[in-house]
């Protein structure tokens, strides 16, 4: 077929409003999904940031969101499982808060449908912030005069200081925690030199092996579907399953009770994964290289050559994005007391 003829066909296609563009790699979007009932505002985001860093909403006044989701690191705590009040540790590894707004559901098992819902969980978890109940949290917030004004600015209304509003504020702040412009993103936008050759090789390998089946570009997490999406881990048997005790946790089954949900988890984003060791739901795997080997074996029944592991790890390092600079907020004081008296 002649070039002209082909041109005609394409012109006809263009007339139908459809594009013939081949599938390409996309960069991380700069806009996160925002729920209609919680629009982003400056005041809300600023309040959310204060609450995120404020340890006074833990029973001992020592643990804030940032304790386990350290924004000055990879948005987690680099521990196998997090340490909450009284040195208690939980059952699962802290997921990164960076880019969490792109996840369809929150927590490893997806038991929270939104960041708003998620924010209410850890404050009252006995192994995390350890508050007895959410009413107690609300009381503490109201007892801090500075917060009354901040909530009023952010939400207005008669009774602005509420758990729901606090969760909305924290979620709004978390929706600003995105890390674009990773080497991968710049490469996807056309800068061929943004990734090193072995990183590009790693990406192609990552794709060919089938990793992108679950870790889908550009978020490199599960699909953003209504109700979330969950995958079985570990899928195949093998020595790593025992070595790292990967089947002790029932995953989403514990939430739904459904047999089909056994060992199912939300597919976590791999953005900034190089910064969030140790790995997996139980944090049992200490290094990124080893995590790559475990995933290849348990999910794809593939044993990788060491060179392949290195390429994939190199690519995963290219998912480390640009972190917005964050100034620690001043928190409204509680003069004369470390935590508000109850």
């Amino acid at each position, binding site marked *: 077929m002649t070039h002209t003829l082909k041109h005609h066909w394409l012109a006809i296609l263009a007339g139908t409003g459809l594009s013939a563009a081949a599938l390409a790699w996309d960069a991380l979007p700069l806009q996160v999904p925002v729920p209609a009932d919680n629009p982003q505002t400056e005041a809300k985001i600023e309040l959310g940031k204060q609450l995120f860093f404020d340890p006074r909403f833990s029973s001992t006044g020592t643990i804030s969101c940032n304790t386990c989701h350290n924004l000055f690191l990879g948005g987690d705590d680099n521990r196998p499982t997090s340490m909450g009040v009284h040195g208690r540790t939980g059952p699962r590894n802290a997921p990164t808060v960076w880019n969490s707004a792109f996840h369809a559901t929150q927590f490893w098992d997806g038991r929270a449908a939104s960041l708003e819902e998620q924010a209410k969980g850890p404050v009252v978890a006995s192994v995390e912030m350890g508050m007895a109940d959410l009413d107690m949290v609300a009381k503490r917030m109201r007892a801090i005069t500075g917060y009354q004004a901040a909530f009023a600015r952010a939400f207005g209304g008669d009774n602005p200081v509420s758990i729901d509003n606090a969760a909305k504020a924290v979620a709004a702040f978390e929706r600003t925690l995105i890390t674009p412009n990773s080497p991968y993103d710049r490469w996807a936008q056309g800068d061929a030199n943004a990734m090193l050759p072995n990183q590009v090789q790693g990406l192609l390998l990552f794709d060919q092996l089938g990793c992108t089946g679950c870790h*889908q570009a550009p978020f490199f997490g599960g699909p953003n579907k209504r109700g979330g999406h969950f995958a079985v881990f570990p899928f195949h048997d093998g020595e790593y399953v025992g070595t790292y005790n990967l089947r002790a946790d029932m995953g989403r089954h514990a939430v739904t009770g459904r047999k089909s949900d056994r060992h199912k988890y939300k597919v976590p984003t791999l953005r900034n994964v190089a910064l969030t060791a140790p790995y997996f739901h139980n944090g049992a795997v200490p290094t990124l290289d080893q995590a790559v080997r475990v995933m290849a074996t348990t999910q794809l029944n593939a044993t990788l050559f060491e060179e392949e592991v290195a390429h994939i790890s190199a690519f995963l390092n290219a998912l480390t994005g640009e972190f917005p600079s964050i100034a620690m907020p001043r928190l409204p004081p509680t003069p004369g007391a470390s935590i508000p008296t109850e």
Partner: protein
Amino acid sequence: MTSTLRNRMMLVVGLVAGIAASLMYSASAETPPEKLAATPSVACKPSNLAVAGGRTLKAEDFEEPQACGKCHQRQMKGWQGSMHSLAFKDPVFQAEWALAVKATEGKALNDCGGCHTAIGVTTGTVKFDPSMGKHGGFTVAKQGEHGVSCEVCHSVSGSTAKNSPTGQPGNASLVLNPGETKYGPLLKSVSGYHETQYSELHTKAEFCGSCHNIFHSENKFPIEHTYDEWKSSPYAQADIPCQDCHMVPVEVANQVADRMVRAKDVPNHGLGGLAAKGAKVEREIVHDHGFVGGNAVIAAALGSPGAEEHKAEALKRLQGVADLDMDVRVGKGGAQELRVKVTNLRAGHHLPTSLTFIRRIWLDVAITDDQGRVILRSGELDANNRVDEDTVIFGNHSVDKAGKPTINPWEIASFTQLNTIPPKGFRFGKYAFKLPADAKGFKVVVKLNYQSYDQAVADKLLGKGAVLVPTIEMKALTRSYGADLKMVEARTLASR
């Protein structure tokens, strides 16, 4: 009848009715929701599509093919650039569809869309936009743009064929149940990504027949009957379904047709393997999803990914499907008579099939004598890329309810002439000619040609001169004869 007896009888009748009602109730209570909606959905009419459990679907209920293709790479490679992937986008189809929608006051939107974008129809996102293209065009949620995509077939949980107006597969007689569970033909399938459900329907020709069997939605005339053709063919007798030829490479399909065995029974088919990256069970056959038929044009013209491979496969298929033979004899009255025999060697349906009144398979015949004189010429393309009406064309002649010729599917009420070639069957093209007295011999060159549609159709749909419909030579045969009508080697003739 005494009143007591009547009362008793009414009691009995009442009891029976009550038992029947409770049986029906318990049956429906235990029937999974996807089985309940085996009646075409009102919202999808006049197509026979249904949504399991009468759910209201959103475009987001369907995944886009690239998500599936990351694990099902082999299937994705086949599907990309297939006519299934272009079922919605194909500009020729869109133009035809636009004319249909305008002529039927909108009924054709779902009527055609049911198969061409089942996602668009079940989600109600397919819309007609009269401002697009030459005749109008269509928009749909992006999930629906991919035509017959992974999610269409693998969301199918049942069939509405029994409850459709014709009681047969056709007009999108499918029940869609999109969600975590994917339906497919593999037993003991397990996936870490989605739930799996074995579906016997997916192993059968009836599955494909859900769309490859099209009845006029009002007069019920079978406009396209590929499934029905198969059903009354030796292939159906041998339990060889559509999938065994159209979901394997052409080389394997040819073996299926030559041996009349299932694809899995073709020696050394080489199609075994994993159905997905990281899958647990090695399969006897992993099906290609290229669904290669006769269309070697659209994908390549649109520059779709995988188009060149599809074009090559389609050419291979077209060039291996039929066979030619010929003989020459003295006919009644002294003229010579050429008979060209065209055999449908390897298609499990007629040649051509589907739009038998639009697809063109014809004979191009040239007879020249030893002195280079043209004795007979038939089926030659003219300056307008068309053949004349005396050409031997294998196809059906369609008319509207008034008996007027039409090729608009929405107007067709019957066929007045049937000339397609049945599976394993043949038809003749006959030509009379008069050899000059001084000719010592002659040469016959026969070509079997194919066009997806006539140039006039392309001109009407896309605008005059927009495209030149390519002609594909399916088969050619040259023979030389002496004046005694006995076949000779071409060289012998030249030396005489």
